[in-house]
């Protein structure tokens, strides 16, 4: 009886929490609809703080940031959204649009056709699907082993061995792809420039030679970090040190 009461109480609390989030969400949508983008952004960020990691939510935050004129943050959140779901069409289009707004030229598309094909393939399958596929493949492999043990004790085993080899090859492929996607999701190499401009130096101090000036919204690759300075690589391959507080890494908890 006691147990039941506790369960009931907990589910009630959970329901209330969900209901509260739902109203916040509705408020955010209506604020956006009424073009009160500041309020919409505030509410969406509030939902994010509750601990949700959701591609659609991140997309909406990025969208609202853009409406508030914060291009860098908008790009950052679009990237985050794509990190969770690489095939998120809205985020892809949004990011492409935003990248056209930055003062520095940058593009999403890979130049190499083969690479583009691979990227599309990689983005089309989610990490969880890969996990399920890997589990199914492992199950099939083990089932085949069982069959070999029990049914092929005194028989020619070429066919099941071939089958098992093919399955293992596919499993290795799936696991490799999973590793790539996993790294892509959890790596913290990418960052977005949030400050309006940043100056790149040849070393981690303004005393070094000035190498470049970059503008808000540029997607950078962090290669090294030291004190408050980051060595970043620009899309065109130029490297330089900028202050770390002018950028934010594309990470998800």
């Amino acid at each position, binding site marked *: 009886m006691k147990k039941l009461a506790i369960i009931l109480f907990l589910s009630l609390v959970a329901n209330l929490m969900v209901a509260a989030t739902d109203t916040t969400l509705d408020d955010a949508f209506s604020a956006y609809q009424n073009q009160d983008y500041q309020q919409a952004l505030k509410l969406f960020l509030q939902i994010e703080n509750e601990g949700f990691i959701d591609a659609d939510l991140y997309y909406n935050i990025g969208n609202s940031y853009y409406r508030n004129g914060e291009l860098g943050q908008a790009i950052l959140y679009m990237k985050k959204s794509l990190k969770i779901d690489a095939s998120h069409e*809205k985020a892809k*289009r949004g990011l492409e*649009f935003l990248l056209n707004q930055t003062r520095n030229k940058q593009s999403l598309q890979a130049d190499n056709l083969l690479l583009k094909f691979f990227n599309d393939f990689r983005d089309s399958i989610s990490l969880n699907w890969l*996990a399920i596929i890997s*589990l199914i493949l492992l199950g099939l492999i*083990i089932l085949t082993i069982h069959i070999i*043990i*029990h049914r092929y004790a005194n028989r020619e085993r070429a066919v099941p061995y071939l089958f098992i080899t093919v399955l293992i090859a596919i499993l290795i492929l799936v696991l490799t792809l999973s590793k790539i996607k996993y790294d892509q999701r959890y790596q913290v190499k990418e960052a977005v420039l949030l400050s309006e401009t940043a100056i790149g130096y040849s070393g981690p101090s303004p005393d070094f030679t000035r190498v470049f000036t970059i503008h808000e919204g540029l997607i950078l690759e962090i290669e090294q970090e030291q004190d408050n300075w980051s060595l970043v690589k620009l899309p065109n391959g130029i490297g330089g040190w900028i202050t770390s507080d002018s950028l934010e890494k594309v990470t998800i908890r």
Partner: protein
Amino acid sequence: MTKKVFYVILFFCFTSLLLAEINFESYVDNTEIGLQDRLNLTLEISGSDAGKVAQPQLPRLDNFSNLGSSTSSSSSYSFTNGKAQSNITKKYIYTLRPRKTGDFIIPPLKLAYQGRTYTTNPIKIKVVEGTTAAAPPTSQRMQTNTRNDNTTLADNLFLKAVVSDKQVYQDQPITVEYILYSRYEISNLAFGEDSGYQGFWKETLFVPEQINFTTKTENGLRYNTMLMKKDLLFPRESGNLEIPSLQIKADIRTQARSFFDFGSSKTYTLESKPHTITVKSLPTAPENFSGAVGAFQLNSRISSSELKVGDSFTYTLEISGKGNLKNFTLPQLPAVNHLRFLDPETSTQLNADGVSGKRTIKYLVIAKEQGQIEIPPLSFTFFDPEKAAYITRKTANYTLAVAAGDMAYIPSSRAQMSVEMEGADIGFLAEISELKTAEIIYKSWLYWIAVILLLLSIPASFIYRKEQEKLSSNQDYYRTKQANKILKKYMKDATSYAKENKADFYTAAQSGLANFLADKLHIARGSTSDVLLSELEKQAISDELFAKVKELYAICNQARFMPGGFSDQQISQHHSLLKNVINDLSKIKFK
């Protein structure tokens, strides 16, 4: 000339009128002769009816005496549009001798035919003392007496540049024709150096592909003429511009002087006289000046003025006239609400003169919405050099009645085009039906437990297989294994009976024990208890255990013959005894 005749004949063919057109010309073989020379005056009548014309009368010539005349006639046929047409040329050649020196004029000759009078041009003749020896150059004379030759050569072989206009406005086109005049036989022609035109934008209208002479009378002399080049020039700068001379190399075949002289050819370089063109700059242009210079007409039309939404019609704009048709900007259509103008098709048709023609601009227009739609007039401003003023022409304005259509606005298939992006913006929010925190399966412990379990199933399966093999290969091993099972089963029954203090306990205990022992001892089931006990005795078991087994058997036998002979307490005692015995027996390894 023949062309003219041809047209005339065509005219006859179509009208069937009996009016015949003929051509009448007169020319001499030389305009400067000596007193001792003779002058050949030729009267030429050509045309389809030339054969019917009577010999024209030569007027009285005071300064020349008529030495006689000869006649020649030739005819040619041509087929045009399947009709045969004849062209007859009749020549009356009079040989005249001058009576005295001086400048004379052979007056115009007249010919009346079918009520019309044809007149030739007067010819100027200069008569000098002695002879001008206007014989054609011979090979010897060319070599020895070039200076004299040149003077006669210049009269008989020259290149003339004919400029259509010498005073023009900027961008007003002029034509330059280079005509070769020759009274010699020319075997080959080639262009010399071309110095090009400075300050002009040039378009070549004509360059001959083969030597093709036509006869022409100029200053009373008969020449073979050939159009060497025709250029269309558009002056791009104002001021005095020069049309440079054109060089032509002509090979002239000399006449044979004797039987052994077959004649040879000599190359002469001819140059036309340069011309200077005065180009006036255009007066200050109005704002919407198109850059067109010439005389133009502006026409417009629409293919239909009543249509439905989604229907298309053609708006045609036609600029025709004479001038720099190719080099001006087209008038721009203003944007009209509810109408969509697709990119126009522009075509320029120029006549052979390269100056006149028309430009046609065709817009395909699609009505987007219903209502009365007005297309405002379009203006086109050009400079007319004749009037020396800017002229603006306007098209009519059109009113379209667009009715509601059942079709949405779709461009016609003829000019299909992709949708144009009219503005870029970030998309709307993504709909969130359920907020979820993306769970990564790879990070979940359930995934890894599943993996470990799957992997562990392999050794488990392997062990199971080995066990199976042992069972199938070793019958005794199988029975030993069975024995334990049987024992367990009977023990379970026995225990339940014991708990209920039933006498069935003894039956269960006895058969269980018997089967157990039979399997353990590898002897047939159903053997008597004596056989079992004797076999058991052979095994290495303690006497105490053997005695217990014996005692148990005895109790069981007793119970079978005397049901209900034991109290509850005794049954539980015997149960524990059975448990002890079996416990001990299962510990023993039987042979």
